[in-house]
């Protein structure tokens, strides 16, 4: 992955949950902390900035993003969410989990109809709907995905957007990214490893809103090279 343009402007940042009344989320945040070396202190969590490589500010959080991340330095920014859980040892249960979380027709089998919307959908869609910021204020967004072996699912979702949104074609762009590489090679890169890092700088331009012209999207695709 490539963070060389980002730098690490400070050592720690503070994460505060926006709905501190939900104390049970302490546990969930604690899990995140275990992974990234966070230490829990009341409602606030401090994290070593270098664990993220590139750092944070107060992001225009999606309505129900699980974590609102603020840093001491207001300039660099990030927004992090975790999406639907999986049980990697039991991939056959994934559709069952999705039914419980997302199915909206039957409250006797699913909580899906009771999420706050559209925030939950934005979160479930991995923040794809978060638009590009004002270019006069912020640099173009970089979108980074951490996935495991269930990334077939993630990839399919991303693929879906690429098909839906006009002017975007990941296949073409991937070929430009790695000359001579096949789509399968890219997919293999994503799927290998128990905790693969999917660096999708190239998708930044592909995830543009439909209002952006296809010319612009492809132009950006040519400019971004996957390391």
């Amino acid at each position, binding site marked *: 992955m490539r963070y060389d343009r980002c730098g690490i402007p400070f050592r720690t940042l503070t994460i505060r949950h926006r709905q501190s009344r939900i104390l049970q989320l302490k546990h969930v945040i604690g899990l995140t902390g275990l992974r990234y070396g966070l230490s829990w202190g009341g409602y606030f969590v401090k994290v070593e900035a270098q664990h993220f490589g590139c750092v944070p500010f107060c992001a225009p959080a999606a309505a129900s993003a699980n974590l609102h991340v603020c840093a001491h330095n207001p300039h660099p*920014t990030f927004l*992090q969410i975790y999406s639907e859980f999986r049980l990697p040892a039991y991939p*056959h249960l994934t559709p069952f989990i999705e*039914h419980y979380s997302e199915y909206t027709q039957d409250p006797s089998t699913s*909580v899906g109809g009771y999420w706050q919307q559209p925030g939950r959908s934005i979160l479930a869609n991995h923040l794809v709907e978060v638009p590009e910021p004002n270019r006069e204020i912020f640099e173009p967004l970089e*979108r980074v995905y951490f*996935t495991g072996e269930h990334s077939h699912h993630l990839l399919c979702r991303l693929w879906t957007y690429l098909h839906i949104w006009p002017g975007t074609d990941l296949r073409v762009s991937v070929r430009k990214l790695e000359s001579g590489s096949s789509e399968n090679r890219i997919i293999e890169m994503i799927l290998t490893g128990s905790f693969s890092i999917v660096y999708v700088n190239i998708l930044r331009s592909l995830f543009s809103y439909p209002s952006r012209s296809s010319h612009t999207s492809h132009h950006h695709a040519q400019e971004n090279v996957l390391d």
Partner: protein
Amino acid sequence: MRKKMSWIDLLAYLRTWSALHTLKEHHPEDLLHPEGPLEERFWNSLRRGAVQGNIGGRAEQGGPNRSEVGCDRGAQCVHQNGATDQTVADPESEVEVEWGVALILTRKVSEE
């Protein structure tokens, strides 16, 4: 993001979901369900599906039937006459849970 936890911890996690809390506000009768509240029925179905998948049962053909969430029997079968039920995962046993993570990064444009 991955974490090993017990099945009991997974149930605790499920109980943190805001959607579940909202559902219970709209459907307080769910607490009176003879097989337990919705999150427990779901959790029991997961545990059963995990075991059945391991032993080559029905789960390999697509997981537990969705309709089972409403007619779960796992919680009642954990112990029968003192014997451990082998059809559901032990609540104290560990399970690996994984979440996909998405990051959006940017920074303010330099004023210089």
